[in-house]
């Protein structure tokens, strides 16, 4: 989980969490900050009350048993691929109320461009690599598993 950085003495730190608990992006951001880092970029993917124009009543995520270890792998890869100091990511599963976070991703770096690139890359990789599924129930009583025709 640590490597030598090209331009400083710090080892990168990567952490990942798949949980049914509430996740608050500010808590994860606080954990990656340091007096060395100059830039912290965060992403929060929040449960919306609408999707493709339809009103969402409730939403639930399901996580495969391998999700935690795969999320750790993705976090480490991001920390190695970018010039960053610290990477932290968490995905919530189970029912999530509208407005609360389903995914939080935070990155600290000395420089802002690396922080933005790494955070965007992290979110892309989570969506592509992590076996988690989203089930939406609409206000009209219908439901769907997202991304599945």
């Amino acid at each position, binding site marked *: 989980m640590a490597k030598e950085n090209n331009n400083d003495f710090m080892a990168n730190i990567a952490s990942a969490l798949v949980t049914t608990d509430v996740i608050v992006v500010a808590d994860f951001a606080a954990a990656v900050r340091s007096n060395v880092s100059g830039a912290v970029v965060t992403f929060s*993917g929040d449960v919306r009350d609408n999707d493709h124009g339809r009103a969402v009543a409730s939403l639930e*995520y*399901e996580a*495969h*048993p*391998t999700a935690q270890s795969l999320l750790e792998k993705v976090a480490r890869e991001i920390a190695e691929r970018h010039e960053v100091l610290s990477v932290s990511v968490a*995905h919530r599963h189970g029912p999530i109320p509208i407005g609360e976070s*389903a*995914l939080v991703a935070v990155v600290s770096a000395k420089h802002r461009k690396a922080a933005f690139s790494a955070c965007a890359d992290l*979110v892309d990789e*989570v*969506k*592509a*690599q*992590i*076996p*988690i*599924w*989203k*089930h939406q129930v609409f206000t009209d009583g219908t439901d769907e*598993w*997202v*991304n*599945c*025709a």
Partner: protein
Amino acid sequence: MAVTLRFYAAARKATGTSEMTLEPSVALHLLDQAVAAHPKLLGVLGQCSFLLNEVALHDFDTQVPDGSTLDVLPPFAGG
């Protein structure tokens, strides 16, 4: 002698069950039997990826040995 097929998310919705127990065979034959038992699975299966004992499975001619778990994973939708 048995293997377990596990169905997640839309695959579970299509089969109406979270798992099936079958005799060891090649993956393709196991999935054929699952579709035979649960015809709606056919509409989902083409979009799925598969894990054999938690490792990605790409070759459907692979023999699934006794005690194995074959997971049927619909397209991911995290984030």
